[in-house]
Each structure stands twice: as C-alpha cells, then as structure tokens.
C-alpha cells in the first residue's frame, strides 16, 4: 500500500513541478515506482491517473506541438491544484473556521474539517478575537447525508424510501439540486425522475439507506436554484388579523407585522402562506388566539372546531 501511495505522491510532484507536458515514457523513466513490463506500467499509470482525478487533482492532457501529432503529455497546473480564495485576512479565516466548526459532530464534519486544515495551511493566522462570541451548530441529519452532497457534486441520481403523508413507503429516485436547513429540519430538493417535477423532501422522513446511482450521472442543476425560494414563490403570502390574549401566544407574536392594544387583548396582523398550517398554529394557542380576518380563514377554523367537537362529544 505504501508503495502505491509513494508513487501517487511522486507522480503529483513530478506533474506539478514540470513546466511542460511530460510524456508517458518520460514519466516511466523518471517517476519512482513504475516497474515491470510496458503493459504493467501502462495499467499502473491509467489507474493512478483515475485515482488522482478522484482526489480532485486535475491532470491536463496536451501535446508539445499541436500541429504535429505528438505523443500526448501530462501535467498538473499549479493554479488548478492550489487553493485560491484571493487574499484572505485573519478575520475571513476566522469566519471560515466558525463555518467549519458548526459541523462538529454533524453530517459534514469530515469535509468541513478537511477544508479547515487546508485553510489553516494558507499561513494566515485566524483572528478569532475580531468576531463576537457566536457558536452556531448544525443538527445531526440523516446518516447518509454525505451521500446526498456527494451526489450533488457528481450529478448522480439517488434513491431512497420516503414516508408519505399517509405513512406509505414510496421509493423515490431524485436528481438532487440542493440541500438546506431551517428550524432544525433538513431538506433536499431535486428533480423527481418518475414525476418529472421539482420536489422537496424532509430528510427525517427518509427511511433506511440512501443509494447513489453509478449509471445515471450528469443531469443539470438549474442555475441559482434556491430551495426555500423555489417552493415559497409558488404562493403569495396573505395577511391575517388575529386577537391574542395579553401576555399569551408568543409564537404568533414573534411574526406580528402590527400590534394594537385592545385592553384584555392585543390585535395583531401577520403573514401566512399555508392556511391549514396557520390554523393549526392558531388552534395550538387554544382560547388565547382568535382569527378576526379574513372571513375565509374564519370559516375554515370554525369547520375544524366543529370537527373537534364532533370527535369529542
């Protein structure tokens, strides 16, 4: 195993150091570790190239003289190999460190830690003192979270079992576009291959393993796709007027647009998108919250209350 690793490192060094393309025969002659018959060396080299590409090392193929059909040569361009985020200040390194730290114990711990190691190698001291004391942290998500990010970067389809709203288990095949988190839940959005529609999924509703397809790769991710904006833009928010008992219904108060004092009650206005979910939130507050407007919403909550009464008489 060590011999192979040495050879891969030596190949990387040789291809990085060269100013011109190196031919295969030059590589076999000069890079340590290529031994055996011509055929063996060829096989070794092909595998090594694939391995380095899998590590994200871009090997360029070219020739000395494009006019004549020379033997192909190889090199690694240092500017493609190296990290380059422009001139980074100590404060920027500190921000990036906090960003990586947020993954501690969570799904992308390993890539975040690797990124941090690379950033620390830039040689700029992190200026953590310049930042206020904040310690944001990601919640753990599905155990196969990294398969999703891996699939997004490879443009590979994924399949999983999803618990539908009536508890049926559905097999879904998705071309993932993005992942995002809000209020402790993780979401995945992508093209549902069977339905040919962009859909979103909550990761905690995925059952069992997520599998990645080796065959179907290379779909397009819509430019600038934004998971939350995509699903929210479908419907316009409406405004509701709700009466709240003084000192109560904190969850509704936090989203109030206006509040007016009515003595024992406060009258607030607030935005809502999904009427059903909004009614559930109002009902959670029991006798401390009453919908005043719009009339349609009032009708719906009355219908729901009649249903609750009918279930419990």
């Amino acid at each position, binding site marked *: 195993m*060590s011999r192979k690793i040495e050879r891969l490192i030596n190949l990387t060094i040789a291809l990085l150091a060269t100013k011109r393309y190196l031919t295969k025969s030059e590589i076999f002659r000069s890079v340590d570790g290529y031994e055996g018959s011509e055929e063996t060396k060829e096989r070794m080299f092909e595998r090594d190239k694939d391995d380095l590409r899998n590590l994200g090392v871009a090997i360029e193929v070219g020739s000395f003289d494009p006019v004549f059909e020379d033997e192909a040569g190889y090199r690694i361009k240092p500017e493609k190999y190296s990290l380059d985020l422009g001139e980074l200040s100590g404060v920027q390194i500190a921000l990036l460190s906090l960003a990586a730290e947020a993954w501690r114990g969570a799904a992308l711990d390993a890539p975040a830690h690797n990124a941090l190691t690379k950033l620390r190698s830039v040689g700029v001291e992190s200026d953590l003192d310049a930042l206020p004391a904040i310690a944001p942290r990601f919640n753990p998500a599905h155990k196969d979270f990294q398969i999703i990010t891996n699939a997004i970067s490879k443009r590979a389809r994924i399949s999983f079992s999803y618990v539908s709203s009536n508890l049926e288990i559905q097999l879904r095949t998705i071309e993932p576009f993005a992942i995002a988190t809000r209020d402790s839940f993780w979401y995945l959005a992508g093209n549902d291959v069977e339905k040919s529609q962009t859909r979103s999924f909550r990761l905690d509703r995925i059952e069992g393993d997520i599998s990645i397809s080796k065959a179907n790769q290379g779909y397009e991710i819509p430019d600038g796709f934004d998971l939350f904006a995509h699903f929210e833009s479908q419907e316009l928010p409406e405004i509701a007027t709700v009466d709240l008992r003084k000192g109560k219904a904190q969850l509704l108060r936090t989203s109030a647009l206006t509040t007016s004092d009515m003595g024992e009650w406060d009258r607030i206005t607030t935005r809502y998108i999904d009427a059903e979910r909004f009614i559930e939130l109002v009902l959670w507050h029991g006798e401390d919250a009453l919908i005043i407007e719009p009339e349609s919403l009032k009708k719906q909550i009355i219908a729901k209350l009649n249903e609750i009464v009918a279930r419990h008489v």
Partner: protein
Amino acid sequence: MSKPVQTPLGRTARLLDLVPFLASHQGIELKALSDNFNVTESQMVADLTTLWMCGLPGYTPLELMDLSFESGFVTIHNAETLSNPRALNDEEIIALLLGLDIVMASLPSDRNDLKLLAVDLIKQLSIRSSIPSKMSAVPATPGSVRAIIESSLIEKRGVEILYHSSYSDEISRRIVIPIELRQENGFEYLWGVCQSAHALRSFRLDRIQEAVVKSTSIDAVPVTATEPSQGISYTIHAHSRPRQVIERFAINKEAFTANLQVVSFSTEWIKRSVLASAGSVEVVEPPTIRSEILHSAQSLLARYQGR
C-alpha cells in the same frame, strides 16, 4: 471528528494535505499534528515516513523532501512543490457555504461589516464550486445564545435565561446551573438544574430568547434530588393524516395503529397538540382531558359565532 481514512486514496489525500500544513506549522508537536489529522501518533509517524521517500524525480537527498520528527516536533523542508494547500472540493465548499450561512444568521445586527465579509466569502466559494444551486441554512437557535450557554458550561457558572415554554405559553426568567447540551429528536436541549424549580430540567435551545452568564459558581448552589416526574398516560385515535400524527406525538412509525397509547408529562401539551391536530386526532382516554378539549373547542366556537 472525522474518521481516519485508511484506504490508499484516503491516505494519499492526507499526505498531500499534510505537506502544506507542516510547511505553515514548522516545529509542530507530533501529538498536535496527529490530533489535527485525527490519526494516532504511530499512524502519523508512518505517514511522515512515507512522505520522506517522496520528492522530485531524481530522488537523491537533493530532491527528496526533508522531514525531521524524531524529537517529537515535526519540520519539513525541500517540499516547495506541494507546499500550497490543495483547492477545496465541492463537498468541502458545500460544508463551508452552509456553515457561513448559519454563521451570518448568528452575527449581531450591528456587525454588518462581518456580514459583508461573509457574503464576499460565499461569492468567492460559489465561483470555485461546480454547483450552481444555493445552499441555505436558517438556524433554529441564534448562535449568540448558544455561545453564552457554551461558555457557562465551560466556566461552570449559572446562566440566566429568558425562556418561552411552549406548553404553558409563558415567558419566564430562570437561573439554570447547566449540566450539558444534548441532541434529542433533532432539537438541541440544555440540561441543567433549574433554581426556581430546584429540579433537573431540560430547555429547548431555540426557545431561549436571551441568556446571561451569572457569577454563581456551581458549588454554591444547593441541588435537591430530583423526583421522577409522573407521566400522564392517554389514548388517542388517529382519524386522518397519520404522518403528521406520528411526528407530532413522537410515535414510532412501526408502532402506529389507529388507537395509540401515549405518555406525556403535561396535560397542557396534550390539549394543545390535539387542538392543533384540527380534528385528525381524538382523545379516547382519560375522560377528563377529553371533556376539557371538548369544552375548549365549544367555547372557541361560541366566540367565533358570537362575533
């Protein structure tokens, strides 16, 4: 922490990242170096020994990397070719983009300067990634509150919190002697001894609105033994929307049947949850809770129809 990668490719990646890290951390202690790469010291020595055999073609001492680590401190020379850190890959960029988003949401509103820096970093990282979609993160808990809780844990001091209890729908100020942060059902909780209750309590972090570290040290606080709270056992019948029911009442999907036995510590919570289920859930037992829900729904109806 990440698991040490022991495949040949994983080790190669580690060695490639080790060189620039060493070049920028000359004389680092072997132990600290091993910790940073999350490997044992003997694995690190094996890695360094492998690196020692690598260098530019020719492979005489002039071309080989020059490493020294026998003293327990590691230095590297003659490694210029590999001394720049490798470019970030797409997964590392995804991790940083989401991380920066959550950091930005945690910055106080008067630090627009830092927000602008973060926005610029997000732009720089996005350009370098092959992924055209946006990754966004909205944290449940403000990072500033979390930092205060963390520091109270480290300093072993009490913390005063402004807490919104969603069961009783009340905001109260309490002093808590923190014990630990715990993840449960996808939410983060602070476990600690609540001074006003003189008992062990858990607080969902996203419901803590403010936090201040107190000067009280932990030893100064009398901690009374906590009695196990008595759970209330109740039976519900799920009429519709089963996924919502199992998520709301934290029921195992495998255990789902139309009639469900559930235990809760708060009557208030049961009533609220059943009302919010908007008719898809019926309380079968106990009759007291059943009639309280009926009463609430009827009096709400009277109010709506009276207006």
